[in-house]
């Protein structure tokens, strides 16, 4: 059959194959290519875009959403969703801040406490919120959307109750260091973002737990039959998401210098957007934390670029909307091909 083909036909076939390969690459690395293209355009349009300071700005501005999105990736990989991260940001932030403030009104008696203790407690608060969501989802089989919607409301209410609805100002310099400090010229939020990314990447790609997450999300029945404790995995991913939301909340408080009870409102939506743009399937089992980070950077770069160009913020929302839908359309096209 092959031997009978004429030379032009073979050439056409080769070209065909080449095109298909290009299309496949385009779909696999589409988000990265989009990020690079947008960066190139911004670099040409705006002279400041590629300055070291601006690049650090983008990374710093992306770090909080990026960390939330990494936690969200774990949850979405298991077919879940965590709508509560924005409220957990506020709760963990205000609890940690109350331990690390010099303001006499907001302080917990005996404070300010060492920053490390405040951070440990903030992380614990985040994990506790995640654990509650996780138990409700895993043990009581409540849909994740509903369970974390409940937590969204409850954690916000607890934040207002805890701080009497007031902000906690005057944080100690040690605590603020996680938001404003620098190491070798790199802002701390960026370092924390990088560390969280590397650890998350390692956990998902190199540990047994990571394999379990993908299996439990890809097909919970098959995972269960294969001896994987799917309920435990489900619980764990919410704890991870909660812990990272706690970290993000403390970074936010440290960065702005004050823990506000209305902090983090609607942050869950940006986190989900980053995950989705990064190619993680809401159907579970498919996705990479690398994609999530690229998705978060894409959102950050677009916001930053439009700010630099002086474009009204309302356009930014429109563009973000288009990005989210376009990313999922790309993803769907890839699935159809397969």
């Amino acid at each position, binding site marked *: 059959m092959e031997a009978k083909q004429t030379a032009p036909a073979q050439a056409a076939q080769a070209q065909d194959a080449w095109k298909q390969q290009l299309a496949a690459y385009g779909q696999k690395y589409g988000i990265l290519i989009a990020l690079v293209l947008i960066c190139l355009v911004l670099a040409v349009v705006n002279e*400041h875009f590629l300055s070291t300071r601006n690049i650090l700005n983008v990374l710093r501005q992306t770090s909080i959403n990026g960390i939330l999105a990494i936690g969200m990736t774990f949850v979405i990989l298991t077919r879940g969703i965590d709508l509560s991260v924005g409220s957990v940001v506020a709760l963990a932030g205000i609890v940690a801040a109350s331990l690390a403030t010099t303001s*006499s009104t907001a302080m917990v008696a005996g404070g300010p406490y060492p920053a490390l203790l405040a951070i440990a407690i903030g992380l614990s608060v985040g994990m506790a919120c995640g654990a509650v969501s996780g138990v409700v989802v895993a043990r009581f089989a409540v849909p994740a959307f509903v369970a974390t919607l409940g937590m969204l409301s409850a954690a916000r209410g607890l934040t207002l109750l805890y701080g009497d609805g*007031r902000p906690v100002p005057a944080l100690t310099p040690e605590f603020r260091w996680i938001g*404003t400090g620098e190491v070798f010229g790199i802002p701390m939020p960026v370092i924390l973002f990088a560390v969280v990314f590397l650890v998350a990447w390692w956990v998902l790609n190199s540990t047994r737990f990571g394999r379990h997450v993908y299996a439990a999300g890809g097909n919970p029945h098959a995972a269960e039959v294969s001896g994987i404790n799917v309920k435990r995995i489900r619980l764990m991913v919410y704890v991870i998401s909660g812990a990272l939301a706690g970290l993000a909340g403390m970074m936010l408080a440290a960065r702005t210098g004050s823990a506000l009870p209305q902090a983090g409102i609607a942050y869950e939506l940006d986190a989900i957007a980053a995950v989705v743009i990064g190619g993680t399937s809401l159907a579970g089992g498919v996705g990479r934390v690398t994609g999530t980070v690229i998705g978060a950077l894409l959102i950050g770069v677009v916001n930053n670029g439009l700010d630099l160009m*002086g474009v009204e913020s309302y356009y930014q929302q429109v563009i973000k909307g288009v990005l989210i839908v376009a990313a999922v359309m790309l993803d769907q096209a890839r699935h159809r091909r397969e």
Partner: protein
Amino acid sequence: MKKTLIAMLATSALTAPAVAQDVPQIGAAVYGLNAEFMQIWSAALEEHPAVQEGLVDITIFDGRYDALVQQEQFETMITQEFDAIIFVPIDIEAGATAVEAASEAGIPVVGSNTRVNSDLLHSYVGSDDVRSGYMLARYVLDQIGCEGNVVILEGPIGQSAQISRLEGNMQALAECPDVNILEQQTANWSRAEAQTLMENWLTSHDGEIDGVIGQNDEMALGAIEAIRAAGLSVDDFAVAGIDGITDALVAVQGGDMASILQDARAQAQGALDVALAAVKDDYEPMSDIWTSYTDMPWNAGADAEYSVPWTPVNDENVEALLATRQ
């Protein structure tokens, strides 16, 4: 605050509080209690001498930033036959229906802090946002000597405070034709959003920004954090905001910014005095605000509008103001 919350919970369950017959019952419907300003306002209301002495019973309703919730709370108050209502509406238009309903039931409504577009309002005790917008911009322009470049951090576009404060900003800017507005963008009253915006502006207008006009303190504080994060000196910028929240007072004390105090205490206590005057015959105001603000005469509590003056926060008064926040 805790007491208020408990009171809210109790009334939201529609249980009528046990009240002695002769004590008037006044409800305060505020748009939301999540931000510091309304908390100061609420606290001041409860510290009013009439409340402290048990001459009036106060219930505060948290409108949760929802016009519909506020409307329902009005219906509750009408059903329970409150004697007067102090109203801080979320929306200038949507509040009018609620006022109309109360008016039909014969309950006087005294506006406070934010305006409502209704002729049926008994009176209004608030501060003029156009004025504050002017004072804000004027301060920044004076600092930079009426020349150079400024950026404006605006509130959510379309909110009455944003519109009025911007109007005041523009009046002041018109007096300094040599000043350039480099950027003018909303940060939605949010410190975190303002910080991001300012970081990006500091990049795109490297070394060009002289002044920051923050339409509230939160955004001005966000700009200060951005300036610090960029490794620049806050002293090189003229930054100002409005409201006089605690963090801003601390920043004023540290010489980082200027703020214009919107006197929540005067608005709250003034409104309560006006409401009590509507309920009781021959009522004399009990709050000390009427003596401290000589520009705002009592006039037997019968004026349609009381304009609480704005107070620029400076070295002289900042210590005293901070002391009230403890």
